[in-house]
């Protein structure tokens, strides 16, 4: 399946943007691996015949991260714990700072993959983040690794540092492509 040249807009209505964290440290058993959904974001993918004219831009609201799942841990996550995690993300980790991605290069890699290079703004800093987007079954999917310390962020820790969120978090996007805009 090939993505036809054009402009594609994505957001929570037709796509999901999720953040996956993993736990670490000596007391990792006490913590949870989390799936967090960004519920307020928008992205625009512009594909042109000339790759230099192709671009991807994304902005997300740091206050819109919502915990969807928690795996592992000694106890299941309840509503109170979920609310506490969301508050910690807002107040201690992201602090309402802008989240924005702007590509520097979008290149086709075969018929069904786009390779994207660019910069992510997070926690008031910018750092390069690259990833692949694949087109299959009418959907656009991709995953990127974001290293928190590369953006000056201190990964969240508790229990005197024996329970921590690992530095690398995985960000995934899964978007429905508009019908008729692809040749698949």
């Amino acid at each position, binding site marked *: 399946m090939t993505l036809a040249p054009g402009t594609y807009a994505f957001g929570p209505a037709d796509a999901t943007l999720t953040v996956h964290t993993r736990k670490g440290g000596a007391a990792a058993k006490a913590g949870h691996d989390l799936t967090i959904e960004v519920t307020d974001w928008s992205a625009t993918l512009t594909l042109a015949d000339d790759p230099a004219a192709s671009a991807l831009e994304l902005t997300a609201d740091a206050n819109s991260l919502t915990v969807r799942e928690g795996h592992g841990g000694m106890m299941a996550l309840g509503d109170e714990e979920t609310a506490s995690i969301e508050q*910690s993300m807002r107040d201690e980790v992201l602090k309402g700072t802008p989240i924005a991605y702007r590509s520097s290069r979008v290149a086709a890699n075969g018929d069904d993959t786009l390779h994207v290079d660019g910069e992510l703004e997070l926690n008031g800093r910018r750092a390069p983040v690259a990833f692949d987007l694949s087109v299959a079954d009418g959907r656009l999917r991709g995953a990127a690794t974001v290293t928190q310390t590369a953006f000056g962020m201190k990964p969240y820790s508790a229990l005197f540092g*024996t329970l921590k969120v690992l530095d690398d978090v995985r960000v995934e996007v899964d978007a429905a492509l508009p019908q008729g805009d692809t040749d698949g």
Partner: protein
Amino acid sequence: MVELDHAFATGPDTWATITDLERVIPCVEGGRVIEAVSPQEAKAEIVVKMGAMSMTFTGTVEIVERDDDAQRAVLKVKSREKGGQGFANADVTFTLNGDGGQLHTAAQITGKAASMGEGVVQSVLDALIKDFTGKLATA
């Protein structure tokens, strides 16, 4: 039974802090005095935060041995997990000398906390004690 030994820095007031339950208990992160029963005994609780989760232990802290000349004291902690079946007991022995202090902890922990395994309990306790002794020096 988990046994741990720590050396720590002392300040001019450390002995007075250790032997004053209303001062020493808040030096434990999440610890507070609920009621001072006597100068030797206090009802207390500690809330151990594990990120979003937390466990609360309530019980007593008692000074069972105290030698002012040798600057040696033993504090006995007996606590139960609030809303659970577990308990956390410990004998904590402080010995101060001119250069600093030694702390020996012998702890027995059961219930949910212990279900993480002895290695995990030991790591968390070790980190908690290091945090505690750091606060003790400046309390």
